[in-house]
């Protein structure tokens, strides 16, 4: 007689995880029930969808519309370029001032609050406020995307600085170098590549969002697009959408090229 060998089962059932899955499922059913999805609505939706696509095709390429499109896209590009340049340049000092390992608390606190405030609202909501402040047009778009850029780049830059090795900073400082030299030769060389990474990501994001802020009147192709949508000008809407997607894809290709250049 050999004693029965008892082994623990290979895959132990985990009841907390199972209960979590059930809760998630129940929530989904509850939330979906709030959406008032009915079979008729779905069928009507399919019908609308078919008509919508039918009116979109073929895309409108008449000369007057193309001129409108080119003007809007160009303004979007301008907004993206200026907002990126402003936002990235401003992020450098703001990120530095928000790094807790270099600056005293009375500077980092307000700076971190400011960054958090920039980050917490969607670009389009910031654009609403700026449209009221500086009127309709590209300036409102530029300002709102600048604020969004600061929120993203400065936050990640400050975090990158907080992770640097302080030995080099210490070494530069011990030679009696003034503050600016400590920053220039002790801090920046350690974080500059990451900063460039955040900056290029933000340029891409600004390009995408510069086509959207126009929905609330902050300049660019978004305004033209929303107007076409509200006028049921769906064939022109399709032209605009396709050209936005084309611009974004071209910019992604360019970015990959540039990344290879700097590797």
């Amino acid at each position, binding site marked *: 007689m050999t004693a029965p060998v008892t082994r623990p089962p290979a*895959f132990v059932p985990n009841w907390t995880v199972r209960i979590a899955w059930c809760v*998630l499922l129940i*929530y*989904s059913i509850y*939330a*979906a029930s*709030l*959406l*008032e*999805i009915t079979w008729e*609505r779905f069928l009507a*939706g399919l019908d*609308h*969808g078919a008509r*919508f696509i039918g009116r979109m095709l073929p895309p409108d390429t008449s000369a007057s519309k193309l001129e409108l499109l080119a003007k809007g896209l160009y*303004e979007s*590009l*301008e*907004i993206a*370029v*200026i907002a990126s*340049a402003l936002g990235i340049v401003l992020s450098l000092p703001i990120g530095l001032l928000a790094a807790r390992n270099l600056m005293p608390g009375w500077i980092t606190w307000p700076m971190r609050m400011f960054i*958090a*405030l920039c980050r*917490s*609202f*969607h670009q*389009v*909501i910031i654009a*609403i*406020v700026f449209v*009221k*402040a*500086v*009127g309709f*047009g*590209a*300036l409102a778009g*530029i300002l709102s995307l600048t604020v969004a850029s600061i929120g993203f780049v400065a936050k990640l830059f400050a975090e990158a600085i907080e992770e640097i090795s302080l030995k080099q900073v210490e070494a530069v400082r011990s030679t009696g170098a003034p503050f600016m030299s400590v920053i220039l030769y002790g801090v920046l060389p350690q974080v500059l590549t990451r900063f460039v990474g955040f900056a290029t990501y933000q340029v891409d994001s600004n390009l*995408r*969002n510069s*086509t*959207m802020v126009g*929905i*609330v009147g902050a*300049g660019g192709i978004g305004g033209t*697009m*929303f107007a076409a*949508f509200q006028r049921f000008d*769906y064939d022109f*809407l399709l032209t605009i*959408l396709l050209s*936005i*997607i084309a611009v*974004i*894809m071209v910019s992604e290709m360019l970015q990959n090229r*540039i990344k290879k*250049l700097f590797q």
Partner: protein
Amino acid sequence: MHGETPREWQRYTRSERLARFALYFGIVFACVVSLRTVEIIPEFLYDAPEQVLDLLHRMWPVEWAYYPEGVHDALFETLHIATLGTLLALVMALPLGILAANNLTRSRTLNYLAKLMLVSSRSVNSLVWALLFVAIFGPGALAGTLAIAFRSIGFVGKLFSEALEEARPGPVEALRSAGAPPLSIFLKAYWPQVEPAFWGIALFRWDISVRESAVLGLVGAGGIGMAIDSAMNLFQWERVALMLAVIFAVVVIAEVVVTAIRKRLI
């Protein structure tokens, strides 16, 4: 005289230096051209401080009493749109992510097709998705939920397929040599390796969705954005201020929750 010039060390080749110079030049050129041609009306800029003061004046005092009447339901609709949209995206991104991962799906065409779908989902902004779904299903939370879902698929699917591609092949081979069927291989070899990454991605996306769902209402896709839009059209700035404050609070709470859950997950 040997006729040999001493070789000089240079960091980059000539073409690399030229390309870098071209890039720097291009950046400066783009900035200068944009600044010179952008249409800014100076008169608007001069009275901006006045306008901002006027705006703050109209926003104050914030109409807190309006919250139970007009904001509470819209706020929860926004949260439902964000959460349900993200869940829907997770469900749809799971198969697409598997199809896009080249170590799980050994077919080049399928990889390419899945990646194409993920890219097209990502390159359309959630506001544009919202416009399309409003045109199909009419204004309301359904359009918003679908917009969030379709925008999130690309994001979740891309990161999930990258996580799958990084999974170690050891456990997979072990299970395969024991004769396990494909489903078991996925559930017991891949899933345990990518599960933390998957939930991390889901939480990250939920955080973004909460921010985005707040603006979908501007194009009629439900949630608190619709309330903001109507308050703004009626110049009820003290109500707009209330809604902005509420959105700020929700975004901060969402970030705290996400950070707390992520700490427990990892």
